[in-house]
């Protein structure tokens, strides 16, 4: 399917994901509550949020990777021309690993411990391209070299527990890139790594993304990591985007009170000697979301209007938007 030059690689409108429980008395958890965004080819979007914000669920929804039986998903999701929301499971297995691939946070648990990494890389290739075992093994070797694993030939037959954390993560990247996906999804891939290894992996991802022309959606809770890789940043809170902007604009001046709180709470060189800026309270329960702005209970600039209805994600400047009545007063807000 040919795409026009300005067709977005990812097109998401009103994505909602909820988890139901069979047990009586356990309410449905509304993890994602209306997410809209587009991703251009070769662009990097960082979804920034804390635990419970719904960022990982959003990422998995792009591949329909959430547990099938308990997940209720709605909205429009199109990735690389493929309609994700209405595809059958059989169609999805052809998409996953091929047009879209994902790397995970904990490479130790995300890799199968009883198969060598060479086999795990090769099986992806064999699944999607049908080549024979020897050719797949050669491909796996090439990929390990691409991700700069030293002594790649020897490592092909290594098991995950025999590798260090950094090497395991590189192996996982090799696995994800094996079929040249157009979109790479990364779920906090460097959180479990040491600082010196983290920067290596981030640089590697950037380089590979450039070389292979992929789009990258990177989920993280770390602003520093976001600043190293992102073109755009979307801040997520209680299942919604509350701010979206280019990375430089965002870091220079975040607009949403939550985003400002996050930036203030990030410890850096200038923080020393003064109490850190904190955000009071805790995130809302996802099975009991308030009617108005989800952040209202913790906001130091809350107004009565904030409690009435959820503010829309409205334009707040050139190529940026925010979901806050302070930033985009209702008069000038455009329907999102």
């Amino acid at each position, binding site marked *: 399917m040919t795409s026009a030059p300005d067709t977005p690689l990812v097109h998401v409108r009103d994505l909602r994901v909820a988890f139901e429980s*069979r047990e009586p008395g356990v309410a449905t958890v509304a993890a994602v509550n209306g997410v809209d965004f587009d991703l251009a080819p070769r662009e990097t979007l960082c979804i920034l949020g804390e635990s419970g914000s719904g960022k990982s669920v959003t990422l998995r929804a792009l*591949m329909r*990777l959430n547990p099938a039986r308990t997940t209720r998903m709605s909205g429009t999701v199109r990735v690389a021309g493929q309609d994700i929301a209405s595809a059958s499971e059989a169609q*999805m*297995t*052809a*998409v*996953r*690993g*091929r047009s879209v*691939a*994902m790397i*995970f946070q*904990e490479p130790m*648990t*995300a*890799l*199968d*411990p*009883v*198969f060598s990494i060479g086999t795990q890389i090769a*099986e*992806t290739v064999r*699944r*999607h391209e049908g080549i024979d075992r020897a050719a797949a093994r050669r491909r796996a070797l090439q990929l390990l070299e691409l991700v700069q694993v030293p002594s790649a030939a020897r490592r092909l037959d290594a*098991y995950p*527990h025999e590798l260090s954390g950094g090497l395991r993560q590189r192996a*996982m990247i090799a*696995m994800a890139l094996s079929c040249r996906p157009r979109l790479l999804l990364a779920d906090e891939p460097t959180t479990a790594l040491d600082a010196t290894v983290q920067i290596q992996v981030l640089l590697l991802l950037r380089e590979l993304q450039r070389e292979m022309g992929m789009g990258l959606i990177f989920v993280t809770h770390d602003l520093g990591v976001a600043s190293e890789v992102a073109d755009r940043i979307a801040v997520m809170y209680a299942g919604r985007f509350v701010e979206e902007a280019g990375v430089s604009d965002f870091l220079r001046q975040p607009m949403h009170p939550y985003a400002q709180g996050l930036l203030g709470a990030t410890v850096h060189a200038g923080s020393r000697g003064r109490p850190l800026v904190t955000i009071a309270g805790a995130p809302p329960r996802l099975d009991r979301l308030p009617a108005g702005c989800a952040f209202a209970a913790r906001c130091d600039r809350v107004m009565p209007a904030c409690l009435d209805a959820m503010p829309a994600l409205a334009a707040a400047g050139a190529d940026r938007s925010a979901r806050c009545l302070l930033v985009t007063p209702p008069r000038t807000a455009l329907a999102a």
Partner: protein
Amino acid sequence: MLSYLLRRVLYAVPIALAVSVVCFLLVHLAPGDPINAIVSADTPADVVEQVRREYGLDRPLPTQFALWLGRVAQGDFGKSIASGRPVLDELGPAIVNTLRLSLGAAAIGFALGTALGVAAALARGRWPDKSIVALAAASVSVPHYWLGMVLVIVFSVVFNLLPSMGAGGGGSEAWRWDWEHVQYLVLPALTLSIIPMGIVARTVRGVVLDVLGQDFITTLRGKGLRGGRIALHVVKNAAPSVLSIMGLQLGYLMGGSILVETVFSWPGTGFMLNGAIFQRDIPVLQGTILVLALIFVLLNLLVDLMQTTLDPRIKRQ
């Protein structure tokens, strides 16, 4: 790897020795004088003494044990007091029969147990899962000799479909895997398979649920792999635990078939043990228990070794 093997084999020796001491002592510590099984009640005293000396029953226990062990090491298990024939001659065919029965029961129990366990794991929380769990609990709890008798009543007496006892004519060497012989195997194997089936079902359910809950399953789905390939991953991860349980169950089947064999008069080691107990036939008892225990120790060893080959995380020396 070799040194690991040697070490495991070496460990088996003291275990086997301890087992032989225990079974030797058990037999002798039971009430009643062993001599009464050999001679009738009205034998004159001096003849009794002579027989006692012949069988070495007048020597102190440690000496009896040492002598017995020495002979066993040379393959001489002594003679049966009841029949007069060498113990080994009777033990051989009995072991083969028990092996047939155990393997048959294992095949049924493991296959059924695995299928039920997988079905329960895939249907977690829903009614198939709950009913299979209940079934597994029931099968572990039911007294299998009672079940054997019920099966005999239903299939042999009422419906006259299957024979109720024995292994068919002709002894152990005449066995063939044809319906004429296998029909005798069906009911006892079915009966014996109940408990392993329950245990394997529960184990498989637990292990498969555990593996399915691991993070790498999401990675596998994320790579676009289909159900069959993912199943291969699940099997390889589940195999070490499940196979080791199965190995141990096989050991229990070999050693614990006495009740079922007695109910069905299946001429295996259990049946032989039963007779020997009532007849106080000490050589047979000692020989049989020792051999069964050694088989169990060997099975344990094989299970251990198999674990190391299947799971790459266990450090190979």
